[in-house]
Structures are given as C-alpha cells and as structure tokens.
C-alpha cells in the first residue's frame, strides 16, 4: 500500500510540474486565442538565460533572477510588437504558425547567446527524499518536488490575485470573454496582450528554473511542452484551475498506469497513455474539465 501511495504522490507532484508549463499556455490562449507553440522554447530560453547570466557575469542566482525577469519581459513585449501586432485579426492557424516560427527563432537565439552545452542549475533545495516524511510515514517523497508544488501554488495564487484585484486583471478577463466588446469599451487590447506575454514569460521562467534544476538546463527543456498538452486537453485551454487539476490527474494516472498496467504490455506506455486518457475524457465531455460548455447555435 505504501508503494501505491508513493506512486500516487510522486505522480501528483509530477503533475504539478506539468501544470506549471500548462499555465503558460492557458494564459496566452485565454487572452489572445493563440496556441503558443513557442512556450517550450520560452521555458528553455528563460532557464538558459538565467544560467548563462550567472555564468558570464559570475553573479549569484539572486542577481541573475531579476535580470532574467527583465529579459523575459522585454521578450514578451517584443513578441507582441513584432509578431502579434502585424497579425492581429488573422485566423488562429496563422497565429499558431507564427509561434512556430517564433519557437525556431528563440531556440536559435538562446543557443547563439549562451552556447549549446548542457548546464546545471542548482536551487537552494536539494532533490533528495524528504527525511521527515521518510521517518514518520515511511513514504518516500522528494523535498524538491514538495517545494516545486509550493512554488506552483504561490504562482497560481499570485496570478489569481493579479487577475481578480487589479485593473489590468479585470481588463484581461474582459478581453478573454470577448475581444470586440473589450475593444468597444475602450480596453487597449494590444497593451493587454503585451502584459500577458510578459507574464507568460515569467511563468516560463519559473517553469524553466524548476525543470532546469530537475533535469539540467538543456535543449530537451523545450520538450516539456509535450507533457503539458494532454493536461491542456483535459483541463481546457482556457481554464487555470483546469490546468492544475488536469496536471494532477494526468501526472497521477500516467504514473499509476506505467507501474500497474505497463508491465503487462511491455511498458513505455507513458508516452501515449495521457493522450488516450485525455481523448477518452473528451469523448464524454468535449469541452474539457473546466471549459465552458460550447453551445452551437445556428
């Protein structure tokens, strides 16, 4: 039974890491209807910039961090100005393609600036089993994962406060509901988008730091976006709580499936299981966990 709980908890905590990436997608999709293919590239770019700044300037994490935040904000603003603004009012698929071009550009830029080699990123907390839980409950859980979950919780709370309490947040929700109506009541759409991309950049930085500390800062960080996709299908592209719950469900179920079903069919089912799960779920509820019910009128 302990083993079951270890798998479950490990899965849930992995799910938090997936949710972290998924939130970046949700932010941008909700506000601008863009499926941001470059989110993975941004995660890599953020982490590499942070490590690169530490390396090149020889400064500590705490100095590199604000510099990177500034870089991500500039990047977000630049993306809005150079890529999105000229493409305003274009179909979704065009914007999606533009973010693909963006992904190539960012990947090239990151490696051009800081080189292709793999680097380590050490956060102040070590990735070892928590002794406390081990001693008291005989359950093995990484203390790093617990901290990551806490950071994720903090981030989500901050974002929720930002969106509910500030003017920008209210404008943002208006934009998410209806672009045209928001424009009509005088909300500056472009500024909101710029803010959103900057915020998404910061979310990418948080994800990049945690994933980078976990797996090393390397090109493969761009692949973590793949882990976020089933989460998005399950939770809905427009729902922040959906991203979190979806992450938890996907994380836990894929681990349980791999451990308990995997050995029966030769293993390695983690690659497709979350997608199939999300797919089956969609067949029952096409709008996802928290997506709004789509009523099609004719």
């Amino acid at each position, binding site marked *: 039974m302990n083993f079951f709980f270890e798998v479950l908890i490990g899965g849930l905590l992995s799910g938090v890491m997936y949710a972290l990436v998924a939130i970046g997608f949700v932010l941008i999709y909700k506000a601008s209807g863009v*499926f941001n293919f470059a989110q993975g590239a941004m995660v890599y770019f953020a982490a590499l910039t942070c490590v690169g700044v530490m390396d090149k300037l020889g400064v500590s994490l705490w100095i590199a961090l604000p510099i990177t935040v500034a870089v991500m904000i500039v990047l977000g603003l630049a993306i809005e100005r*150079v*890529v999105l603004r*000229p*493409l305003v009012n*274009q*179909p*979704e*698929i*065009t914007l*999606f*393609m*533009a973010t*693909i*071009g*963006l*992904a*190539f*550009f*960012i*990947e*090239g*830029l990151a*490696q*051009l600036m800081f*080189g*292709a080699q793999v680097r380590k990123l050490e956060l102040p907390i070590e990735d070892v089993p928590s002794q406390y839980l081990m001693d008291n409950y005989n359950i093995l859980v990484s203390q790093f994962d617990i901290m990551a979950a806490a950071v994720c919780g903090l981030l989500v709370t901050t974002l929720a406060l930002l969106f509910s309490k500030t003017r920008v947040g209210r404008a943002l929700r208006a934009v998410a509901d209806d672009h045209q109506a928001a424009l009509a009541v005088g909300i500056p759409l472009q500024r909101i988008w710029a803010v959103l991309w900057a915020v998404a950049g910061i979310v990418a930085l948080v994800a990049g730091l945690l994933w980078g500390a976990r797996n090393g800062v390397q090109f493969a960080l761009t692949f973590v976006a*793949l882990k976020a*996709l*089933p989460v*998005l*299908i399950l939770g809905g*592209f427009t729902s922040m709580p959906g991203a979190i719950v979806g992450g938890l469900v996907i994380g836990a179920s894929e681990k349980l499936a791999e451990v308990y079903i995997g050995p029966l*069919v*030769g293993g*390695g*089912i983690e*690659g*497709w299981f979350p*997608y*199939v799960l*999300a*797919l089956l779920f*969609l*067949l029952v509820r*096409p709008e*996802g966990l928290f997506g709004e019910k789509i009523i*099609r009128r*004719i």
Partner: protein
Amino acid sequence: MLYREAGQFKTSYQADGQIFPILQDRIALLAMLAVAVVAVPLLASPYVLSAILIPFLIFSLAALGLNILTGYAGQLSLGTAAFMAVGAFASYNFILRIPGLPVLLAFVLGGLSAALVGIAFGLPSLRIRGFYLAAATLATQFFVVWCLTKIPYLTNYSTSGVITAQPIVILGYAFDTPDRKYLLVLAVVAVMALLAKNMIRSNVGRSWMAVRDMDVAAEVIGFRLMRTKLLAFAVSSFYCGVAGALYAYAYLGTVEPEAYNLDLSFRILFMIIIGGVGSVLGSFLGAAFIVLLPVLLNVVAHSLALPTSVASNLELMVFGALIIFFLIVEPHGLARLWQIGKEKLRLWPFPH
C-alpha cells in the same frame, strides 16, 4: 509569353470544369511536366535528384494528404508521421510476406492500412474539434510509434528494430538509381495529385469543404458528417501512407520507427500552413519552402565562413524569422501569394 485569358471562351460546362481553365496555365503545366519527366533526369545531378527533388516530392505528397484532412475537411491533425509509418511498415511486411507481390500494389496496400488506422483514429473527430482534436491526434502519433517499437513481428524480428526496404523492381525493371527513383516518385505523386484535384472539384471535395466551413449547415443539406469526416481521414491517411512508404523505399532505404517521429508530423504541418491551407499547389510550395530553405540557408551560411555553431544557430533564427515574415506578408500562405501574383499578371498592365 503573354498571360491573357481574353478570347478564351468556354462553350461547355466540361471545358469550364477543367482543373486549369486558362490555356496558358495548361501549357505551363504540361511544359513543367515535360521538363520534370525529360529534362530533369537528364540534366540534374544525382545530388539534386536524390537529396532535393525526391524528398521534396515525397513531402509534397504527405503535405497533400494532410491538406486534404486539415485544409479541405478542416480537421487539424498532428499524427501525419504516424500514418506515414503505418504505410511504410505495412508495405514492408506485405512485400516480405507475400512473395511476388508487385511493389506498387504493396504501396497501395500500405496506403490502405494507413487509411484503416486513419479511420480508427478519426472517430474522435466526430465529437472533438479544433486544437483539442489536434492534441488528441498526438495520441495516434505516440501510440503507432510505440506499437512499431513493441511488436517485433512488424520489423521481422530485426534485432536492431529497423526495417530495410526491399529493392524496388517493377515488371523486372529495377528502380535503383536516383533518376529512376525520381521518375517513379514523380509518377506516383503526379497521379495522386491529379486524383486529389479531381476529388476536390467533385462532390466529395465539396462535402469536405462544407463540413469545414459550417458543419451544421452541411448536415442540413444532406451530407453525412460521420461519413464525410471519416472519408477525409481515410483518404488523407492513404496519401500519407503512400508518402511514408516512398520515404522508406525511395529515399531512406533503412528506417527505424523513430524516423517517423513527432518532429516529422510537425514539419508536414508547417508545410501546409506556410504553403497554403486548402490548396493543392500550396502543399507543393510549402514542401519546397521547408525542404529547400534550410538547405539554402546552410549553403549561404557556409559561404559566409562563419564558425559552424554560429552559422547553425543563425540558420535556425533566420528560418524562424522568415516564417513569421511570410505570414505577416500573406497570412494565407504561399499559394495565395502565387494566386495574387497571377491575378495581377492577368490584369497587367491595366490593374483597374
């Protein structure tokens, strides 16, 4: 040559229903085909044939397949490479296990196998749409590659898990040199492009576009959604399957399942978006863009004598920037750009 349609009157609906209603277009196409069939194999170097034109044609075919599904029937898919893999591995097994099976028939059977898989994984499209469907088709991608890695029978128990394409021999004639392979691929692609164009100008094509543009209205008019969507999945997968078989047989030779990874699916998707969603010509232009541009950039970067790692990264950045640039200039893809150019030419020098 003057590009004019004045004086070309259509006196029958048959004439008006032609694929290229303008005489000059027909002449240009025939000339191009003649060049492609006669001049190119004679003049082009083996490098151009085997490293540029063959992959270009194969990717065009795959892009055409995806365009049928995404561009015409409106169902976004990220599982293209999986259908290509099914086509390749099925063809391999058919040839291996049925002695004396003609290669072309094996490609058709490979395509049909892909079509069956396409129908199975197209079923969710009846309930799910848009990006949700796209992400769901990723399930196809991962599941198919997983199956190919897991089931040794499919790779004929090869210890390294790869398949080696058998030599292509048709009626005793071996297609073993670049120019022969090129002609074979060209023939297959040309015929299939023609068939696709025919489908698109007939009722089946209209049913796809109707479902794409407004599915409820399509149903009210009498199209059956399920049949239409699944047919689109089947035809699209068939095209991708044949392309996948050609990719293995006429291009790579020895392939592992990994060759048909998500990366390839994405590349094909890029092709149709850059080329033009819902355009046969766009499939070709997009394939040209995605196949040729990196090569061109690579050549240019090398001639600049930059350090290789800098050159490689710059290539990637320029490639990305060009995609964005083209989308800003013409969001509907290269095919639309081409069309606008043609319209201008038709009216030139009296644009008003």
